């Protein structure tokens, strides 16, 4: 009979790659989950999805030039992600097209381009590696990079917190008192790209956005207050990471999809049981109150 120690602790105690993966998902949780909360609240949940596909050709170009080189692929990803974010924003403002349409156009082209570039030089295994990541093979440099991204994200969020919140709630008021709205929006988009690139190293370009959005959306069902929502999203992201690693260890499942699936289970549970605007309130309203 397996003990709790065998199930929960032993995998991490015995294997270094599991400990590294643990540190990696911790760093990812701190950076990506709060960004996900703001994306969700600004009704940009799918924007994250589009932007992560946009990162692929950049990372692929880095791969084409330097192979699996951390610096080249990171730089390529950041450049490509920023280019698509800026490009879609510019097209949306300069033309009749809305931003979602521009993003869709840009990311579809990027995705196709990225797959093409990887297959020019690499094998299908390389492509899978780039699309789905390798959380079980994080080296020192990658861990430091992830931790740095999380640190930058939290610091920058602290600085732009007030204008970011204000621009979500009451953009007209913000514009009437301050010019910080546009710069903080740009910083925010940069943070989205940064965290998607970070997530890409661990979870690949297809699943990076999962650790960003799923915990954030799940947290929405438990908290009616922004601060609590963000703290909870970080906790849920980390729990998904740990749970996914354990599932992947015990059942020999691929780790990236396992992490996102655990996050998905948490989302489904929150949807059903969460007290704030979830299904429970709808179908089991409880007896009404006095006032």
């Amino acid at each position, binding site marked *: 009979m397996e003990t709790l120690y065998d199930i929960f602790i032993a995998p991490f105690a015995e294997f270094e790659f599991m400990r590294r993966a643990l540190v990696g998902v911790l760093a990812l949780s701190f950076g990506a989950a709060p960004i996900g909360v703001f994306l969700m609240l600004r009704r940009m949940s799918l924007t994250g999805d589009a932007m992560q596909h946009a990162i692929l050709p950049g990372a692929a170009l880095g791969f084409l030039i330097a192979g699996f080189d951390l610096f080249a692929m990171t730089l390529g990803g950041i450049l490509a992600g920023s280019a698509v974010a800026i490009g879609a924003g510019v097209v949306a403002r300069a033309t009749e097209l809305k931003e979602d349409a521009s993003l869709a156009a840009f990311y579809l082209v990027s995705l196709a381009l990225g797959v093409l570039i990887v297959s020019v030089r690499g094998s299908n295994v390389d492509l899978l590696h780039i699309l789905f990541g390798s959380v079980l093979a994080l080296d020192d440099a990658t861990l430091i990079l992830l931790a740095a991204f999380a640190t930058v994200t939290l610091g920058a969020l602290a600085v732009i917190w007030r204008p970011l*919140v204000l621009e979500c*709630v*009451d953009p007209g*008021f913000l514009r009437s*008192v301050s010019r910080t709205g546009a710069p903080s929006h740009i910083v925010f988009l940069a943070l989205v790209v940064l965290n998607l690139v970070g997530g890409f190293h661990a979870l690949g370009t297809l699943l990076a956005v999962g650790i960003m959005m799923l915990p954030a959306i799940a947290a929405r069902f438990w*908290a009616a*207050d922004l601060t609590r929502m963000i703290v909870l999203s970080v906790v849920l992201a980390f729990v998904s990471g740990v749970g996914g690693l354990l599932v992947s260890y015990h059942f020999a499942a691929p780790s990236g999809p396992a992490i996102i699936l655990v996050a998905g289970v948490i989302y489904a549970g929150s949807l059903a049981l969460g007290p704030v605007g979830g299904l429970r309130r709808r179908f089991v309203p409880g007896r009404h109150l006095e006032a």
Partner: protein
Amino acid sequence: MTAALRFRDLTLGYDRHPAVHHLDGAVADGALLALVGPNGAGKSTLLKGIVGLLRPLAGAIDHGVAPSEVAYLPQIAEIDRSFPISVYDLVAMGLWRRAGLGGRIGKSERDTIERAIATVGLPGFEGRAIGTLSGGQMQRALFARLLLQDAKLILLDEPFASLDAGTVADLLDLIRRWHAEARTIIAVLHDYEVVRQRFPETLLLARSPVAWGPTGEVLRPENLLRARRMCEAFDDHAAVCEEHAA
């Protein structure tokens, strides 16, 4: 008498179509001005122009007050009320000029915020999410935010839209208090009764100004009729306006 605002042949609009056309005149310091007119008359546009959200197509606005002393209450529909923020935090935004990006909210600021919330009649609602407020409570919270802004020029865009009589009376009392404190107030209104009773001065706008002066003279039936006719004449293929062309 110094002017809080002076409009010089002002034209504001969207995509070259004027929404406010050739407006001249001045708003005196300490004025209590009602801005009335049919839908699409350019009332909100004029407020946006004053705040600086919209650049004039022609002419100019001279400000007698610094931009930092202008408070602007947008129409309530422009606010995302599903955002998870508390009444307290919404009201606290009024301190933006003082606190900005990273300024501290200390004891004295917290006292001011709580006083403002009490003044508008929302004590006990501090921790409530704004999504749970009724329309009247939400507007009270926004007036508390205006109180904190402590502005010399206050612009209100349809502050009483779909509010009950009790709430309107309370908010009108706040406006009267601001007027007594010699602040300049411009409010977009649709209820002529309220305008007649509480606003000494009125600007009737139908893209072009129809009448501007003491409320009793402006709100005469022939003026109102003229305003309605003028507003129905929007033309997608209008020619370039030659009036006052420099």
